[in-house]
């Protein structure tokens, strides 16, 4: 079955600390992975996708097919990073149907 697991509902860190938001997936096909972010009172927006292999706002994520993981990392958290983060799996089938995880709330304290 296709599934995305984000084991932490809440991750609380201090400003300047490293951050790692965990994401594991289950999918028999060729996966496409995304991270979406939702800041307070804003709409859900794409943060990054694995095929782009880019760093957005200092965040990076590497697809590890052996461990079926796509963890999101940032070396030094900022207060403005506080938000809900959703990992999503793109199901191949002619279009981008997404399976989302339950989300992790990142709280960065001063």
């Amino acid at each position, binding site marked *: 079955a296709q599934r*995305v697991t984000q084991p932490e509902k809440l991750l609380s860190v201090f400003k300047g600390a490293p951050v790692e938001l965990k994401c594991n997936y289950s999918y028999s096909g060729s996966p496409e992975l995304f991270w979406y972010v939702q800041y307070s009172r804003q709409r859900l927006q794409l943060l990054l996708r694995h095929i782009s292999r880019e760093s957005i706002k200092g965040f990076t994520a590497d697809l590890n097919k052996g461990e079926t993981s796509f963890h999101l990392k940032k070396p030094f958290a900022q207060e403005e990073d506080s938000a809900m983060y959703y990992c999503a799996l793109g199901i191949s089938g002619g279009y981008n149907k997404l*399976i989302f995880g339950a989300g992790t709330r990142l709280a960065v304290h001063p």
Partner: protein
Amino acid sequence: GAGVSQSPRYKVAKRGQDVALRCDPISGHVSLFWYQQALGQGPEFLTYFQNEAQLDKSGLPSDRFFAERPEGSVSTLKIQRTQQEDSAVYLCASSLALFQSYTFGSGTRLTVV
């Protein structure tokens, strides 16, 4: 428009009432998706349109849910005889082409009382 627009932003319905939720995608966007997000959960896929064709409705939870996009632009998600378990945020997203990234709307928060 500049983004995906959804209306109403909030809807309170009495159990058994029918509701209609509207989505205005970005002009020219071919693909349109509806997702349902229950409290404390991630969005769950409901249905997908390519232009006016509804190509996947596998996520619609029951036959009380119906979606349409008759002219390939605006879409309406209709829920008949609403139940308490229908309470959720309903998100619409559109994309320019099949494998482009989505742009999400702000959602409609439906509360069934």
